[in-house]
C-alpha cells in the first residue's frame, strides 16, 4: 500500500519492541505449553498408574512407578479375563479390509468422475458426495433390518460393508480433486500407445499416492474407534472390536482399578504408536480432508 511511509516505522525506540517481542514469545510458550500439558496429563496419569499396585494408585497417584509400587497385576487380569487379543484381531481385520476397499473402489469411481465427461457426471458426483455430510448412522434402524435379512448381523463382513459405504464419499471427493490435476498429455500419450482405459487407471494411481496415504489415515481412525456399529450390528463376543471389547470390559471391571487402567493403556497403545510415527501425515490429512 503506502510504501512511502515505510521508512518511518523503524525509527521508534528499538528496546521496547524487543521487549514486547520477548514477552509475547514467553506468553505464547506459556499458553501452548500449558495446553499441551492439559492434553497429555490425563493420558499420562492412566499409563503411569496402570503399572502400580492398587494402594499406590490411590496413595501416590502422581508418582512414577518404582520398584516398590510396580505391578503388572492389571495387565494379567486383562489378558486372562478379556478377549483382548481376539478383539484386537477383529479391529485389525475390519479396519484393514475396509480401508483397502475404500481406496480401491474410491479411486476407481474418482477416476471415472475426473477423467470422463459422460452425461450425468455431475449428478453422480453429487450423489456420492451426500454421505460426506449426512452421517450413515441415521439409517441404522433400516440398516440393522437389512443386515439381518442378509444374515450379516454379528459378522465382521457386515461391519466392513458399512465402513466402506461410510468412507467412500470423502475418499471419492478428495481423490477426484487430485486426479483432475494430472496433466492430460500423460494420459493421451498412453492412449496413443494403445493403453486401455483400465491401464490408464493403473497408470494414474501411483501419481496420487500422497492423497491415497492421507485418505488411508483419515478413514482408518474413525473405523478403529467406532463404538456405534459394533454395538448395534456386531455385539457378539466373537465379533466385538477393540473399542466395544474395552467398553464392555471396563463396564464389568469398573471397581478393579488395576484392570481398568491397564485395559485403557492397552487400548491406547496401538493408536498412540501409530500417531507417534505418522502424526505429521495425520495432521496434514485432516487439513486435506476438510479444506479440499
Amino acid at each position, binding site marked *: 500500500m503506502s510504501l512511502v511511509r515505510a521508512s518511518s516505522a523503524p525509527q521508534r525506540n528499538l528496546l521496547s519492541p524487543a521487549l514486547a517481542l520477548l514477552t509475547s514469545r514467553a506468553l505464547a510458550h506459556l499458553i*501452548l505449553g500449558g495446553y*499441551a500439558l492439559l492434553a497429555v496429563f*490425563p*493420558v499420562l496419569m492412566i499409563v503411569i498408574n496402570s503399572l502400580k499396585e492398587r494402594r499406590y494408585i490411590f496413595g501416590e497417584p502422581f508418582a512414577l512407578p518404582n520398584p516398590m509400587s510396580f505391578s503388572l497385576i492389571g495387565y494379567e487380569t486383562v489378558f486372562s479375563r478379556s478377549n483382548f487379543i481376539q478383539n484386537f484381531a477383529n479391529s485389525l481385520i475390519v479396519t484393514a479390509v475396509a480401508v483397502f476397499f475404500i481406496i480401491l473402489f474410491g479411486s476407481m469411481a474418482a477416476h471415472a468422475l475426473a477423467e470422463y465427461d459422460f452425461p450425468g457426471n455431475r449428478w453422480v458426483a453429487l450423489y456420492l458426495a451426500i454421505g460426506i455430510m449426512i*452421517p450413515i448412522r*441415521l439409517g441404522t434402524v433400516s440398516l440393522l433390518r437389512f443386515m439381518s435379512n442378509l444374515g450379516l448381523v454379528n459378522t465382521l463382513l457386515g461391519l466392513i460393508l458399512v465402513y466402506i459405504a461410510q468412507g467412500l464419499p470423502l475418499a471419492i471427493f478428495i481423490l477426484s480433486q487430485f486426479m483432475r490435476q494430472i496433466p492430460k498429455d500423460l494420459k493421451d500419450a498412453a492412449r496413443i500407445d494403445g493403453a486401455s482405459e483400465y491401464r490408464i487407471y493403473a497408470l494414474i494411481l501411483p501419481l496420487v499416492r500422497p492423497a491415497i496415504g492421507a485418505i488411508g489415515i483419515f478413514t482408518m481412525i474413525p473405523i478403529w474407534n467406532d463404538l456405534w456399529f459394533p454395538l448395534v450390528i456386531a455385539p457378539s463376543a466373537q465379533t466385538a472390536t477393540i473399542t466395544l471389547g*474395552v467398553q464392555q470390559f471396563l463396564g464389568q471391571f469398573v471397581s478393579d482399578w488395576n484392570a481398568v487402567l491397564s485395559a485403557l493403556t492397552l487400548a491406547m497403545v496401538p493408536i498412540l504408536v501409530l*500417531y507417534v510415527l505418522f502424526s505429521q501425515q495425520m495432521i496434514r490429512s*485432516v487439513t486435506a480432508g476438510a479444506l479440499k
Partner: protein
Amino acid sequence: MHMHRRASTLPVHIFVFLAPATLVYTLFMTYPLLDSLRLSLYAIEPTGVERFVGLKNYIDLLTSPDYAPRFWGALRNNIVFFVIHMVVQNSIGLLLATLLTTKGRGRTFYRTVIFMPTVLSFVIVGFIWNLILSPLWGVTEGVLKSIGLGHLFRPWLGLESSALITISLISVWQFVGIPMVLFYAALIGIPEEVIEAARVDGATSWHIFWRIKFPLILPTVGVVGILTFVGNFNAFDLVYTIKGALAGPNFSTDLMGTLFYRTFFGQQLQLGNPTLGAAVAGMMFIIILSGVLAYMFIWQRRIRPTEL
C-alpha cells in the same frame, strides 16, 4: 471394438469404474437412510404388522406427554452441547492456531501434542476423564489443592447441574486439535505481503488479526462451524460411555444420539420401538440437513467474494 455404441449409453469402462462404489454406497448408505425415513411413517402393531400412520411418530415426539419431554430435553441439551463447542472449542482452537503461526521454538511439538487426543476413541477418553474427575481417586482434587483451589472441587460428572457442561468440555478437550490445525493451515496460507503491508502502515497485531487475517480465514470458520454442527448433532459415544444409555443424572446429559439409541433398542422398563426410533433419526436428519443447506446456500454464498 467397433460395436454399435450410441452416444447416450455409458461406455463399459466408465460403468466398471463406478459400479462397485455406487453399489456399496447405495446398498449400505442411501437405501437404509431412505428406508429409515419411510419406516418413521409407520407403526408396528403387536402382531408385527407395519401400518402407515403418517406423521404420528413425529407428532408424538413433539407433543405427547410420554415422549415430548425427552425429545425437547435431548434437543435442548444438544443445543447447549453445540454452543459450548462453538464458543469454547473453536475459540481455543483459533487462539492456539494463531500462537502456532508466531515464530519460535517447539511449534511442531506443541501442535503434535495438542492434536493427540483426537486420535483416541470416545470410549478411552470417556473413561479416562471419568477416572480423572472421580472423587474416589482424587486426582483432580489433588491438582486443585496444589494451587490452593481444593475447595472448588465437586463430583461434576455426577451432578445434574454440571454433568452436561463437563461432558461437553471433555469433548472439547478431545477435539480442539481439529479446529486448531484447520485454522493453522488457513492462517499460514495468507500471503506475507498482505500482512507486511498492514504492519508498515502501523497496524497493531490485534488489528491485523481482526481486520485482515480473520476476514481472510472466514471460509475456514464456516468449515469448522459445519463440521462441529454435524458432529455434535450426531454425537452419542461419549455420553454412552460415561453415563450409559440413560444419560443421567435424570437425563441431564441426554443428546439426540442417546435418545435415538434408547428409543430404538429400549431401556430398562420400556421395549424398543424401531419406527419411533426411526422418527428420532428423521428429526436428526432434518436438523443436520438444515445445517448443511444453510451452510451451503447462505454462508458459502455470502462469503465467496472474500475467499482467498
